[in-house]
């Protein structure tokens, strides 16, 4: 499999995918704190 970081588009798309994943992680962390879990 080709390394996505070898192309600019692969780098940008990987960054956007990571943003979505981290967004849900952040939501989960905030929700966990507000429910006191």
């Amino acid at each position, binding site marked *: 499999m080709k*390394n996505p*970081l*070898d192309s*600019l588009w692969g*780098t*940008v798309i*990987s*960054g*956007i995918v*990571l*943003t979505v994943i*981290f*967004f849900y*992680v*952040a*939501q989960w*962390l*905030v*929700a966990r*704190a*507000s429910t006191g879990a």
Partner: protein
Amino acid sequence: MWEELSGALLRWLHVLFGILWVGLLYYFNFVNAEAAKQANAAGEGAPISKYIMPRALFFFRWGAVGTWVVGAGLLSTIPGPNGLNGFLAAFGLQGNMAPIGIGAWLGTIMFINVWAIIWPNQQKILGMKPATDEEKAKSRRVAFLASRFNTMLSIPMVWFMVTGPHQSIYH
């Protein structure tokens, strides 16, 4: 008044240093990498290595220091949950500080990447440190991937930096 003003000044400086750092990161990745490849193929790459890269890398790595230090100072001025200092709350991913904390962690990984991987390898590539042709070729690949890795991380990092005033999206 003073707290508000010092917070605004730190935020302003953090953004200025961030533009210097990430602006040069984008210049390396979106402009220079391909331009240098073409210039080297045409036998005209020497001026880039001799005049542009050392200067660009100077502002790049010290821009990273300025961004991180001022960002850490800025976080410290923000009160965290349960009376925690904002810096500790962010890096501990505590409560409402978790989103900015993720951004701070990403920025920290990028900062370490600059000083521990990109800069030492660039020194070999540019002849500032002795290296064989084989070592230079390896350094070129490592520095390229580390720089691309930082470009990738900058996308979520900037998201978490700018969504601070939009906390409701995380609830």
